[in-house]
């Protein structure tokens, strides 16, 4: 009797079909998950392969490539001026973006009242993070390069990149300032410290590793950005070393773009080499951010030390 009821119970379930369906579904998911991985490997392998090819077929001297300026003749073209321009851009961008972003984050976490203005600022941040980077380039082109008459200089590029990464740093800074426990703040107030003293001497030092990690990651994003710099108006070839914030330039990504765009195979090879240099910069930045985060995590566990 009981066995009969059990078979009745399972009668409408075709177990082998269900099993097959499950297995097919699982297989599909695994294949789909591998797609991204395969593309990533293909991309990296392609860039490395092309750059090795370029070095052997065109006999490129690596030292000369890394130190000389670019040229409209492929045999003479180097990446040095672009590397220097990118370093200038990063330094200026970091200075411009850091203080505004951290100031905004402190305001939102520590001072902002719960009202309409605050909600507007917060909603606007989410929106700014979604504005295409090329639009920042357009803004700086019209407002600073042409209306203010600054011209297509490194400073203009840095302003565009800074506007682009401010929202990213703000989000990271807000997170790490919020992560500072309120008990620590209360302790500081109990000692008679004012709000500003508490922020400066207690909250910021604890939040700083997180803020710096966010800033470095944002700079990693900025260093690879091409579109805003092209809008601002970079040189076609970085034929001169930039002498300061007010000199014209072609940064690493824009130089890579110009080389990729050329029909000449040797220029394409130079672009691959340039990409390798750019990726090395990125890896260094990511490693730095990772190191900071790890150190912060081991320290962060021992808040009782403070």
């Amino acid at each position, binding site marked *: 009797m009981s066995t009969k009821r059990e078979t009745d119970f399972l009668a409408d379930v075709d177990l082998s079909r269900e099993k097959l369906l499950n297995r097919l579904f699982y297989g599909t998911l695994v294949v789909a998950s591998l797609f991204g991985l395969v593309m990533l490997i293909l991309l990296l392998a*392609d860039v490395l392969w092309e750059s090795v090819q370029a070095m052997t077929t065109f006999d490129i001297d690596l030292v000369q490539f890394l130190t000389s300026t670019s040229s409209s003749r492929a045999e003479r073209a180097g990446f040095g001026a672009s590397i220097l321009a990118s370093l200038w851009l990063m330094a200026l961008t970091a200075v411009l973006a850091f203080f505004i972003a951290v100031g905004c984050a*402190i305001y939102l976490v520590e*001072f902002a009242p719960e009202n309409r203005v605050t909600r507007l600022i917060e909603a606007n941040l989410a929106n700014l993070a979604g504005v295409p980077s090329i639009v920042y380039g357009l803004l700086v082109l019209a407002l600073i390069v042409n209306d203010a008459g600054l011209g297509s200089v490194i400073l203009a590029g840095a302003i565009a990149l800074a506007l682009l990464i401010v929202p990213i740093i703000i989000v990271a800074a807000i997170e790490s300032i919020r992560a500072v426990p309120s008990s620590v703040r209360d302790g500081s107030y109990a000692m008679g410290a004012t709000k500003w003293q508490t922020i400066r001497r207690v909250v910021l030092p604890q939040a700083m590793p997180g803020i710096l990690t966010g800033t470095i990651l944002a700079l990693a994003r900025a260093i690879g950005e091409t579109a805003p710099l092209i809008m601002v108006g970079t040189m076609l070839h970085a034929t001169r070393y930039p002498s300061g914030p007010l000199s014209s330039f072609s940064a690493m990504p824009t130089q890579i773009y110009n080389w990729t765009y050329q029909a000449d195979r040797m220029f394409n090879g130079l672009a691959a080499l340039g990409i390798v240099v750019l990726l090395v910069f990125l890896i260094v930045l990511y490693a730095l951010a990772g190191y900071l985060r790890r150190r912060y995590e081991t320290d962060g566990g021992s808040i009782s030390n403070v």
Partner: protein
Amino acid sequence: MSTETQSGSEISGDDSLEAAHETNRRIRRLFFACAAVTVVTTVAIFLVLFDNAASYFFGARISEVLLAGEAVERTVGFVEFFTGTRWAPDHSTPAHGVLPIVWGTLAITIGAGLVSIPIGTATALYLSEYASTGTRNRLKPILEVLAGIPTIVYGYFAVSFVTPVLVDGIATYLVNPVGRGLDSVSHLAPGLLEPVATWMMGVGVGRYSMLAGIIVVGTMTIPMVSSISEDAMQAVPDELRNGAYALGATKYQVSIRIVLPAAVSGIFASYILALSRAIGETMAVTLAAGFNATLTANPFDEIMTMTAYLVSMARGTSAVGTVEYQSLFAVGLLLFLMTLAMNLLNDRLKRRFQEEYR
């Protein structure tokens, strides 16, 4: 003793307290100014784009009309702009129909979505429901590297690998299945599928194609879909899964019928984000899809997106005040409004999914 009273009076003294309050107020104002900069940026983007775009349509910038009282003469009509099918503001016989480049942008966006949405969702399901913790912790950051690679590198990848191998290769195969590998289609012996291929491809695949743009933009937006969708799926409470398992559901049924519907607003938010990135994507589509503004449904054709137009104009560094220069801002404004709409939608969906399981 005397120092003690000194410091004691300093702490409670009205003057120093007042000074401390004053400092706090100043600091607060300073930080508020920092926060205001972000709002000013948005307003500036809108005003600058609008002001310059106005000169494209009305012959003078709004600020010039207000300040100097310049004469207003229409240069480009709205009807031509929004309905014209030829886009060539820099041509000797100029045409100002924005449709071809809007179509180019939409084609890349839709195509990239067709790549990244199914693959990203499947990846998220695998990471959330099937993968072990170790696999997930390893695979997720690796996939996020895809989003961290500069888009110019994807552009290079499209030029040096995707177009010659995938796009050209597929086309070659269509024309001649016995195949001559990676040669260009134009000089091939006729093959079995030649009629199909020529119908689909016209003259054959050149250096640029819509398909190459779709492949690279789709690939780079996978982590936006997979990461955010996975977060949304993780937020689905285990009670729901366990309830389904208790009723005899299989893992497939739990994934499709429980997890997906429960996480749907977060998953949709990730789709919108990925599509919004694809709209604004610049370097990869410029290098992969090209500069030919045509209304075509053929994936092997060269097309031009709005961003690619901006780049091609900026490369020529057209002089301030010319129609070409002004057209940058008309297109930029349209692009900004399109992404703004997507962002607002994304924001709304994200908020809904965060509130669902609190």
